[in-house]
């Protein structure tokens, strides 16, 4: 009888992604309600120690697929490993983070297991002993609550939805699994890094975003200064990207990244539906726009109707003062 929760512990370059600790936190709560253990699966090269460290965050068992084949992500290799871990652990629930890796991996694992998966969930809970997930649809214009017909129930969860698990003193038992894959039809030959040291938008606690009102690429410098003071990531609206003010990889919205920070600050962004789709689950929204009719003000918790070029430098100074207190 399937029981407990298995968490996919995504790692890159020997670092476990932050969302994994969030999954361990909610995973423990689900496991306690449904009955059964909390376990994790980690895939990579020389990741045994890293796997073991997850014990401190509540994982009782960690399934490990280790080897050269797993050094870089591949759909086949990782889906094989996670499927093998599911067969070994027989969990009632599999949790994955909605990341670039999670988006590629989750449906493939679901397909292999012949079960359904819920993508990009913003809530998971237990009702009548079963997992129920809530997720945005129609670009966040409404939500659906879904249930699962097969086992395990697979839910991919949006980063920053739950707090991270607290570090306790536990230790995890390591169990090796065989992915059953020896050659890959599609493999990553290279990882090209950009924006080294920058805070990843999808994981950021705070985001400072600019829109068409930024008027020029060079003006993003003032947002970067502000972001630097409050340790925020910098984002942009589609209008700003399409106007050439910002690169496409920082676009927030329906055709860009979906973000979920504690604080989202929108400067010179009107608040088109497709932008809201990418940031409306932000816990606190601040809008600064010259146009008092801008739709973004209807979504904002705090707003300033004024010229952003006057507001941003003052705000940067004000935050500096506040943080120095």
């Amino acid at each position: 009888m399937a029981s407990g929760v298995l968490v996919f512990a995504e790692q890159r370059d020997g670092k476990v992604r932050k969302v994994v600790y969030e999954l361990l936190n909610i995973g423990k709560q689900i496991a306690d309600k449904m009955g059964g253990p909390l376990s994790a699966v980690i895939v990579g090269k020389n990741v045994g120690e890293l796997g073991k460290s997850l014990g401190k965050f509540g994982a009782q068992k960690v399934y490990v697929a280790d080897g050269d084949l797993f050094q870089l992500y591949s759909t086949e290799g990782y889906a094989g490993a996670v499927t093998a871990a599911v067969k070994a652990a027989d969990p009632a629930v599999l949790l994955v983070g909605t990341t670039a890796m999670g988006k590629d991996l989750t449906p493939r694992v679901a397909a292999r297991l012949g079960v359904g998966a819920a993508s990009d969930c913003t809530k998971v809970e237990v009702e009548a002993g079963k997992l129920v997930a809530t997720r945005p649809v129609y670009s966040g214009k409404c939500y659906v609550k879904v249930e699962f017909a097969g086992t395990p129930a697979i839910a991919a969860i949006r980063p920053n939805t739950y707090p991270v698990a607290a570090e306790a003193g536990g230790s995890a038992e390591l169990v090796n699994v065989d992915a059953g894959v020896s050659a890959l039809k599609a493999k990553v030959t290279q990882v090209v890094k950009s924006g080294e040291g920058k805070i990843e938008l999808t994981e950021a606690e705070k985001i400072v975003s600019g829109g068409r009102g930024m008027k020029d690429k060079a003006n993003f410098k003032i947002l970067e200064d502000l972001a630097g003071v409050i340790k925020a990531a910098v984002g942009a609206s589609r209008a700003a990207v399409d106007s050439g003010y910002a690169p496409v990889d920082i676009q927030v919205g329906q055709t860009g990244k979906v973000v979920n920070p504690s604080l989202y600050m929108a400067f010179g962004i009107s608040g088109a539906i497709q932008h809201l789709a990418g940031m409306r689950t932000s816990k606190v929204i601040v809008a600064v726009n010259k146009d008092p009719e801008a739709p973004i003000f209807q979504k904002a918790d705090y707003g300033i109707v004024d010229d952003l070029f006057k507001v941003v430098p003052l705000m940067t100074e004000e935050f500096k003062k506040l943080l120095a207190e």
Partner: protein
Amino acid sequence: MKVLVCLKQTPDTEATIKITGDGKGIEEQNIKWVMSPYDEFAVEEAIRLKEKKGGETVVVSMGPDRAVEAMRTALAMGMDRGVHCWDPAFAGSDALATAKILAAVVKKENPDLILCGRQAIDFDQAQVPAFLAELLGLPQVYMAAKIDLQDGKAVVNRRIEGGEEIVETSLPAVITCDKGLNEPRYASLPGIMKAKKKEVKKFTLADSGLAASDVGAGGAKLKVIQYLPLPERPPGKVFKGEETADMVKKVVRLLRDEAKVI
């Protein structure tokens, strides 16, 4: 080179979505239906590949009769012909059932490459391409920002957090297309005229060779219990007409004292 594009017709990005009274669906009247925006990148890429390498482009869609309109848009952009999968038995199909139907088409068409949009912007699940690849035993690459076809393989740049993965895949493969891959063209007037005459073949349950129990709502692995409206956001505090410095001070203070995010 034969490229097959799977597309879905979805509500327009600006459409207002209203939940039906019973909470089991959305009100479909008054919705403007379009090709899911990410699918446009797939269609554009297929047409460009044909322009460069020759061959054939086929567009496939599973959905009710109105889905043919979105297929006509793809044909007007320059795709060669269409296969429209519909049968009353297909109604309510989830990602797995949809992938089974599309896989039946792929097996008959034998394309060298299958392109999809990154996700359909209605259910935003992004699952059908992976299910399709798994059913066909093919490799998949999600969210391509660049596709370079070489002898019997494709080199794909895939955007990840803080950079890109360069993926080398054998063909055929299922590749999903992200924004930035290309700039989709608009359908020209002659293109629209030509599209009207292009073949769109119907593909039914009988054509698929599947059993009615394999598809439709009955076999769904993921079941919608209820549609929920967005939670109301209490009205915010918007400052205007005061000295900029005063307004900034107030908001910064509120972010610490009230919102507690700084």
